[in-house]
């Protein structure tokens, strides 16, 4: 048993966080949102991520590389980095097109406007090459989401990439979740009401404790799922969907707690927690949200089973 990430992956994540924080941290998301052109995202953020060595990372290769990729995604989530890190990490090894999972009925991706061509896959498993249509949404909850349109036929896809996409996106969600909790802890320690810090109130403490249980559990599940993808790739989809389900549910709960403990400030973009809560929404909703994820997991568990101490699922012929 070894529950720890490889040292190299941890160091890579720390280096990435230091570099991206120095570049602007969460302000990068604020700046990118105001810009109508993609210069900040491509020229500034994209180049910075490449210079970290991300363009040399292929998470399909081995678990050490996948763990480093996971750490980069987690850091990206912590800082709401305005760049499709997961899509770029899973770029096609031949044509180098970024890879996105898209909804069944609407082909769209976060930061879809950044690249002229994408490799996209629907949850059903088919993939196609697609190109952006129009400009990014510019909305509060999907500022960089862009509609795409397939340019060719839908064909079969590598299931491993789907599982890895779901998994690495969950690592990014983990980063946002853990950072929002840290911000809440800082805030309740500083904010004084009724003559004492908010952290002195047991009702506040209990909310923090529950959020910590959620965040810690999600972190452990991220690590475990990455291991599962390499130890038992045939069941990878069930493991990845399980992680996504837990990531989405946990993020919603912890972000809600973190914003609530910030009071009205939690709704204001001057505070990082507000930016985190808005910019994580595409990761929570694309290619599908919690309910659809659980429905997909039911199907996957029926077909593939679910690794546990005792046999679970795997009943359908």
């Amino acid at each position, binding site marked *: 048993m070894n529950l*720890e990430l490889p040292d190299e992956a941890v160091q890579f994540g720390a280096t990435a966080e230091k570099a991206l924080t120095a570049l602007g941290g969460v302000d990068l998301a604020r700046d990118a949102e105001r810009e109508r052109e993609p210069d900040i995202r491509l020229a500034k953020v994209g180049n910075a991520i490449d210079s970290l060595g991300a363009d040399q990372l292929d998470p399909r290769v081995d678990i050490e590389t996948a*763990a480093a990729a996971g750490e980069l995604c987690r850091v990206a989530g912590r800082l709401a980095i305005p760049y499709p890190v997961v899509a770029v990490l899973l770029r096609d090894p031949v044509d180098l097109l970024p890879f996105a999972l898209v909804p069944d009925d609407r082909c769209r991706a976060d930061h879809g406007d950044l690249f002229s061509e994408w490799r996209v896959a629907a949850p059903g498993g088919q993939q196609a090459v697609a190109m952006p249509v129009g400009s990014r949404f510019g909305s509060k909850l999907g500022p960089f989401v862009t509609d795409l349109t397939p340019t060719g036929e839908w064909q079969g896809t590598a299931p491993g990439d789907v599982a890895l996409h779901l998994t690495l996106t969950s690592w990014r969600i983990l980063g946002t979740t853990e950072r929002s909790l840290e911000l809440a*802890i800082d805030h309740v320690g500083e904010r004084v009401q009724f003559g004492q810090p908010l952290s002195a109130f047991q009702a506040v403490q209990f909310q*923090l*404790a529950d959020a910590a249980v959620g965040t810690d*559990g999600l972190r452990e599940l991220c690590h475990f799922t990455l291991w599962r993808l390499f130890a038992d790739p045939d069941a990878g989809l069930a493991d990845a969907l399980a992680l996504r389900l837990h990531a989405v549910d946990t993020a919603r709960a912890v972000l809600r707690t973190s914003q609530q403990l910030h009071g009205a400030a939690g709704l204001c973009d001057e505070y990082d927690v507000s930016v985190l809560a808005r910019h994580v929404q595409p990761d929570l909703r694309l290619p599908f949200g919690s309910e659809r994820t659980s429905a997909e997991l039911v199907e996957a568990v029926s077909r593939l089973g679910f690794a546990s101490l005792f046999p*679970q699922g795997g009943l359908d012929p």
Partner: protein
Amino acid sequence: MVGQRPDVATARDLALDYDFGERASKLRSRLREMIAAEIPAGYLGAFTDDPADLHIAQHFCRRLAEEGLLTVSWPEEYGGGGGSVWEQTVVREEMWSHHEPRGAQYMGLNWVGPAIMAFGTDAQKQRFLPPIAAGEVIWCQGFSEPDAGSDLASLTTRAEPDGEGLRITGQKIWTSYAEMAQWCVLAARVGVPGANGAKKHEGITIFLVPMNREGITVRPIRSMLGPHHLNECFFDSVPVEADEVLGGVGQGWNVIRRALAHERVGIARYARCDRLMSQYTGKADGWRALPAGLRQQWVRALVQIRVARLLAYRAVAEQEAGQPRDATASVARLAVTQCDQQVAELLFQAIEDRSLEGSDTGVESKAAPNPAGSSTAAIPERPPFTDKPLSVKGGRQRSHAFLDGAIEDHWRYAQAATVAAGTIEIQRMIVARALLGTRSS
């Protein structure tokens, strides 16, 4: 995966590696073989109205002891197997998932024995450890009092000087297995609490007291947990000797902290959830008969079980590294106990109103009550335990009743999960204090 994939050799060298290793996997297999051979179907723990169930547990402990598996987690210098923390984890998971076939002895094995190793004198070690290792003795824990539950340091049971020794007077409550235990780990106060500016946990002393000593009265408390689980114990000027003190006079709080820390990760509740859900969907129509809405809850529960297990493993890993954190154990306990209750409710929804029929498995014991029976005594003749799919041909078939009974039993026990061994409110306080970087005053 763990326990099911002992041949995952390719995963052994990975940086992240959740394979327990060959030794632990073999241990898991052997324990399952022994349970299948020794524990009859329908066994739901040692503490039922059927005295044969206690006999089954006592017999099983002796069988484990014969194979050196009862003390697999104990250090070799005390006759144990020197098992790793992960082997200990395997034992916890297999025992709890199969309704703790060691019965009440798990307490002596899990923490009373280790506490005596850590705090006991040589004479105490020689006297108390061999019977525990042989599977011959049941211990109970006299900690909680009517006015000292979560605030345990407020206990008022007192030990007052009397000649060469002391006399203990007071009341304990929620004492599991007190009726059947031969010995009690008893917390009592020596001196006046708060005297000379002392903190209230100072003066607390642990005594190792035989339960048949004059002055001890046990009264069972009727509860939804069934018989033998909850008792009141009255200590009326019970004499104790100096050599019955564990860890020194006034040093009891250290012993208690060790015991409670062990209890927080001690029960692998997620493992029973896991097994019951596996048994349910392993039935011929189990999975397909679930309504669609329940199936989605079902897979969420599978994820919850996995997360709870992983958080427990994190606490174990810290233990292995020699750096256990209270907050990590509390996080695990919060996740595990709440998972236990949610799965209990889910399983109740699955069996619907059959949950009202009780946990009586409908199997009559053929053995005479013999709680103190020897290992050669006949054990009740019941069908062997099985994890194979249970067939349901309509009506309340016997095999169906086994599982319904186990689910009913689990629900009742799960209600205590968030209270026993420190309420989850206390766990939340521990976690919050760690998060906020403050210390308990």
